């Protein structure tokens, strides 16, 4: 058990060298740039702008964009630029946190249920089914309206977003149980929970990334919808949804009260989807392998 083999493998072709990590695709770069730009805007914008959300300009009610108020003002004289950027900040945070949390819960519940089966599976899937049949929108609307902290909204949104993915993950995991590398790990004596965390979930990464991407958009839209109907984010906090709701009545004759928030929402969702598509491709070993 020492020296190197004399018959070192000399396969017909030269073994393919590990290629350098793939660069982002053009659409991925565009998405990343747009997302970074929106993120920077949301973080830095409100700090740099001389107005705050509670300031009122009593010389400018419902004024179109001007040098003083680049995005215009509301009927009560608030600066729309600062409101929109604060709303973007909130929507961005809610979208990302909810998506990551929901996908993580889905991955854990689905993978453990699918790997262990038996009573673990029955219990977890019972909870999953229960949450699926509860009318999520109503529950979130009612429960969150008593809360003025946005974090409660995040928890509620995440709690109702993971079930479908968890079922998909469970199905894939059941198929993966019999993959030879999972069996190999089992026959090696690797404990079951470590097999799930080390072999099963990492191999679901492309599914999970795709799901998280969809969830970012879905969470932002859900929050927007809730806020539009007056639940969700409540004053003095603002989100893109509450801004769109506030602007909707005046959208026809004072379009600046509505379109800035709506436009940023669309840009944000496009950016997240572009980045997500690219990430999914990067995480898929089938697409990474040499042809």
């Amino acid at each position, binding site marked *: 058990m020492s020296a190197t083999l004399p*018959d070192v493998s000399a396969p*017909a072709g030269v*073994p*393919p060298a*590990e290629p350098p990590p793939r660069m982002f695709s053009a659409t991925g770069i565009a998405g990343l740039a747009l997302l970074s730009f929106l993120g920077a805007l949301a973080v830095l914008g409100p700090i740099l702008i001389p107005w705050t959300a509670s300031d009122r300009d009593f010389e400018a009610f419902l004024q179109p964009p001007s040098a003083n108020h680049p995005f215009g003002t509301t009927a009560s004289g608030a600066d729309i630029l600062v409101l929109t950027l604060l709303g973007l900040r909130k929507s961005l945070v809610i979208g990302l946190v909810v998506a990551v949390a929901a996908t993580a819960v889905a991955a854990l519940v689905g993978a453990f249920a699918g790997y262990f089966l038996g009573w673990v599976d029955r219990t977890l899937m019972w909870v999953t089914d229960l949450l699926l049949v509860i009318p999520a929108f109503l529950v979130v609307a009612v429960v969150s309206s008593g809360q003025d902290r946005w974090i409660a909204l995040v928890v509620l949104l995440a709690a109702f977003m993971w079930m479908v993915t968890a079922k998909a993950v469970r199905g894939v995991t059941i198929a993966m149980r019999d993959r030879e590398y999972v*069996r190999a790990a089992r*026959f*090696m004596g690797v404990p079951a929970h470590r097999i799930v965390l080390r072999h099963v979930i990492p191999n679901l990464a492309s599914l999970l990334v795709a799901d998280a991407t969809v969830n970012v958009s879905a969470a932002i839209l859900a929050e927007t919808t809730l806020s539009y109907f007056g639940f969700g984010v409540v004053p003095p906090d603002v989100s893109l949804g509450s801004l769109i709701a506030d602007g909707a009545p005046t959208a026809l004759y004072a379009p600046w009260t509505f379109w800035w928030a709506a436009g940023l929402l669309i840009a944000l969702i496009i950016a997240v989807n572009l980045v997500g598509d690219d990430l999914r491709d990067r995480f898929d070993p089938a697409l990474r392998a040499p042809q």
Partner: protein
Amino acid sequence: MIDVKDLSVSFGTTPAVRDLSFSVARGEILGLIGESGSGKSATALALMGLLPRTATTSGSILLDGEELTTASEKRLTALRGRAMAIVFQDPLQAFTPVHRVGAQIAEAVRAHQRVPRRTAARRAVELLDLVGIRDPHQRARSYPHEFSGGMRQRALIAMAIANNPGLLIADEPTTALDVTVQAHILDVLKTAQRETGAAVLLITHDLSVVARAADRVHVLKGGGTVETGPVEEVLRAPREPYTRRLVAAMEAGDRPAAPRPVRTVLEVRDLVRHHPGVKAVDGVSFDLRSGETLGLVGESGSGKTTLLMEIMALARPQRGRITVLGRDTAHVSRRDRRRIRRDLQIVFQDPSSSLDPRMTVGAIVAEPLTTHGRSPARVPELLAQVGLPAEYAARHPAHLSGGQRQRVAIARAVALDPEVLVLDEPVSALDPTIRAEIITLLEKLRAERGLSYLFVAHDLPLIRRIADRVAVMYRGRIAEIGPAHQIFAAPAHPYTRALLRASPLRDDDPVIAAGCRFRPRCPLYAELPAAPRSRCATEEPEITGDSGAACHHHPGEAP
């Protein structure tokens, strides 16, 4: 019939086929042999005009005097199926699962001939009859999944010859099948060729297939021709070193007897594993002694893999007893089970699925070490032992060749210095030359470390080379077990004899409730007089004494 001149195919900058020329006359079978990557499949696709757009082709392909390389897509569509047809390797994928087999064959008929539905259906039954499917009327109404692998391959041949094509391309038609069924399919292919008078291009990596069926052979390597000539001539006196190596690999001889085994490391007694409706393992007993290699052979579906999984599970079996290194698996604690796992490791058939695609080679080989609380510092040493450079530790399995991946899987299996290694067809997914390298590696490791191998394979020459003893499985039971030289020189069980001679056996036999389960396919049973026959029908034969064969009538025992 078909005349190929200076055919070159390349994908982007990679040449797949280089200046290939051959011709097949009507009524002739040409064997095209080579390893994967030798350009066989690209050639088949080029002939059918099925190459992807990214491929560039030059040279000429004349089918009955008609140039195919410049033919329009419309013309090719008209020719496919009628003038030329192809039989694929995997017949399950070639059939649509939701339609009946007969209907699919009839559809192929009606695609090129204007005949009424009724006539096409009748023709489908005739074709199924021609390829030797019993009860063709009944079987035409079955769905593809109700057919065994061999029957599906027959049905696919029936579909291919439905329109009397001038050229029949068979792309690895028997690779997915068992030896005894392989022989039958090749006979069917010959029958089909005789009936239609077609020119047949038989593509394979298996020289014995060519030896059995082809008239002439064309040896390919790296896209170019190595050697060509009549089959007997090439097999008897191969001119090129590459061909000589292929022929030598086919005719590998006995391995010398191993030093006397010392103790029993694995003992299986009357093991039973029934799945609902399937008696996958139905009373199997054998011993594996330290330092020896026990070869386990049998068709797919004979229960080999189930048997291995039962052993590897280290759990209480449904019935029977498994003892690993002196410990009965029915009575071990969880902690002992983990300890046994150190000494009992497995290498799977296909390394591209047994290695986690997300982990690096280093992490894969380190996993058993860290799992059992040892330092992963030994990884470079282990890689060196299996003949891989230490730098490969940073790579992912996707960037290794098949042979290198299997080396990684072997390194992982021996990382904990096990005593017993279970090898589940460890080389059948590899090319013949790589196969020889891996076998050499396994033999070296066994000699160095005194390992015991339980070696599952369906490749008999390989078993003959590597095994000390051989167990032949049939339908969940061991048909015969004994020293390798005895099994190969004087097989006692009729099934072993058929297996060794690769004599054709029927593959669509019913499951037997009582008596000898090999009865419906048994050539001996067919010849027996009525009195001794009744014993086969009522009494399940056991392996008795030193004979090693589970047969009532094997030589040495009075019938």
